[in-house]
């Protein structure tokens, strides 16, 4: 079953009793995700949407055999929630939370390298395997099954593009939002590698932004190691230098990270780059 998840994926929701956690738990269950429980410290013993709530991730893992977690806890506690999931040996951790201080994330980034956990996010919409599994907040109806893998730094722009594909009759193997923060657990190259190895994925759509050099790294990887065609869109073509556009990640730093630089690197790697996201379906054919 596509990348990152399989039929054995058993998900817990950290922050399940919160407003967002509870709402999206219902959405994920409805979509077919195997949610086995949730965690809210001090609320162990309660039930949310017929799923048991535990005080700690370890207790949830012990009781449910969970191997994946999604985090909806507020920014001030999100780093702690990630550590808790890592140390309970959760293999896949998706962190939706926006606004985690960068120093906290740098610590986590360093630490998680030496564990068997993979972090998606933070500040991301999570992932969606059309008609099968949803771990995150992407609206389910925007996607249909197919053979295009989608990976994106953006949130709603991802929905926009996935929906464009769907409306053009182009289905997806998986849609992965890696998050727009300067420090994230999983980057373009990680997901591109998965798509390259995934037998169901035939083509890939990559959605980038101004700031940082992760799209340039992706271009290098594509040039070196990818056999499947990639179509890209990079947002922020007209953003003035140095202006911070909402995302902590979307800053043009020290003259690098411009959209032009990224587009050039991608084109040199053989990637078709769309100037309008609504043109992506054409470029895929």
């Amino acid at each position: 079953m596509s990348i990152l998840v399989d039929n054995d994926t058993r998900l817990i929701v950290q922050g399940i009793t919160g407003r967002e956690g509870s709402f999206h738990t219902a959405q994920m269950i409805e979509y077919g995700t195997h949610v086995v429980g949730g965690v809210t410290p001090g609320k162990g013993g309660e039930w949310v949407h017929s799923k048991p709530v535990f005080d700690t991730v370890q207790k949830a893992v012990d009781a449910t055999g969970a191997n994946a977690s999604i985090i909806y806890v507020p920014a001030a506690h999100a780093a702690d929630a990630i550590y808790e999931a890592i140390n309970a040996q959760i293999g896949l951790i998706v962190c939706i939370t926006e606004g985690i201080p960068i120093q906290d994330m740098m610590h986590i980034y360093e630490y998680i390298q030496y564990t068997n956990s993979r972090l998606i996010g933070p500040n991301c919409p999570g992932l969606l395997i059309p008609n099968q599994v949803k771990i995150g907040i992407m609206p389910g109806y925007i996607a249909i099954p197919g053979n295009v893998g989608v990976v994106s730094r953006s949130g709603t722009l991802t929905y926009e593009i996935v929906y464009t594909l769907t409306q053009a009759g182009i289905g997806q193997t998986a849609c992965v939002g890696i998050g727009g923060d300067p420090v994230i657990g999983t980057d373009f190259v990680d997901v591109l590698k998965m798509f390259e190895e995934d037998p169901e994925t035939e083509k890939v759509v990559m959605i980038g932004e101004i700031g940082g050099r992760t799209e340039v790294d992706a271009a290098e990887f594509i040039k070196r190691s990818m056999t499947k065609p990639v179509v890209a869109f990079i947002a922020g073509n007209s953003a003035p230098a140095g202006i911070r556009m909402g995302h902590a990640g979307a800053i043009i730093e020290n003259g690098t990270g411009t959209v032009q630089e990224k587009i050039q690197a991608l084109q040199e790697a053989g990637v078709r780059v769309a100037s309008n996201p609504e043109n992506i379906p054409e470029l895929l054919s």
Partner: protein
Amino acid sequence: MNLHEYQSKARFAEFGIPVLPGKVASTPQQVYEIARELGGKVVIKAQIPTPNRGQIGGILFAENPKQAENLANSLLGSVISGLIIRKVLVNPTISIRQEIYLGMMNDRTSSKPMLIASSEGGRDIIEVARTSPGSIFRDTINPCIGLRDYQVRSIASNIDLPNEYWKTFLQITYSLYACFVASDAVLAEINPLVITTDNRLLALDSKLIIDDNALYRHTDLAEMYDNDGESEQEARARAAGISYVRLEGQIGCMANGAGLAMTTIDMIHLYADESIGPANFLDIGGGAQSNTVATALGIMLADPHVKVVLLNIFGGITRCDEVADGILQALDETKTTLPLVIRLAGTNANEARQMINRAQLPNLTCTASLTEAARQAIASARGIN
């Protein structure tokens, strides 16, 4: 969040970095008094977050308190790089042997803090990186271990700092790192760090940018926020948690999510000629309620340059009906007659479109696609121009 030089300087001093005994002033009279205290000969530095202030008239030298007062009088209230100068820092003059650059920032490539130093201090480091990249040395700091002596010594050796300054340089670098970490900074910079002719190391300029996401745990720093130079609209946006940046054009743009907001602007640039452009970047964020939408629309409409409004919402956490509710609310309040092009997709988009159609407002157009929305907004703007 950018701190002013005088605020950064105070913070640096707290962490043991040697700084000059200057003070901040907001009136020429205060400048006179401070100059007198400092012995007469002073440097007056405009408190605005711009590199190379020296070259653009932001740093002035006075021989005596009276001259200082006069210079301050011309500087205070004037505009440099589009920023009004409301405060100046008054420092004693010193005699300099060498200028060094010393900075700490978060490096995105390694996801680690990075120590940067150059023997060519006193200029914008981006400029130095362009003109003499070989003078710049970097080392990443493992956040689990922190800065280590050998890293500092290695940098000191690389920038050819004479041996006798290593010990002090070590202390200053540790202080800078401690300040960087304790302040949740994204940048902490001493430029220049000078060697004086009497053989002291001294931070002559101080710059500290704090991670906005971490301000919740630094109430002392958050209180230093100075909305000098912030427009009323920017202040309103900040208070409502809306990302808002003024641009040069006529089309007010609003979207949910930074990527989508940037793309919306990109679409205008893509399909418009040079005479038409976005009036702003505006991201209402995820899961916005109707009142946030109303506030956002109000902010845009208050801008006299805005001739057309383009709303691009893809519902996810954000519900389109909430957005429609906010739009109608704002239109009801402002009674605007400007053309509004609205593109709604995603969660509850149908309900939203029905609400808008029901309101029967002649200046509202709903479109299905982003391309169509952008073209429509451009056409409207062109019609008005």
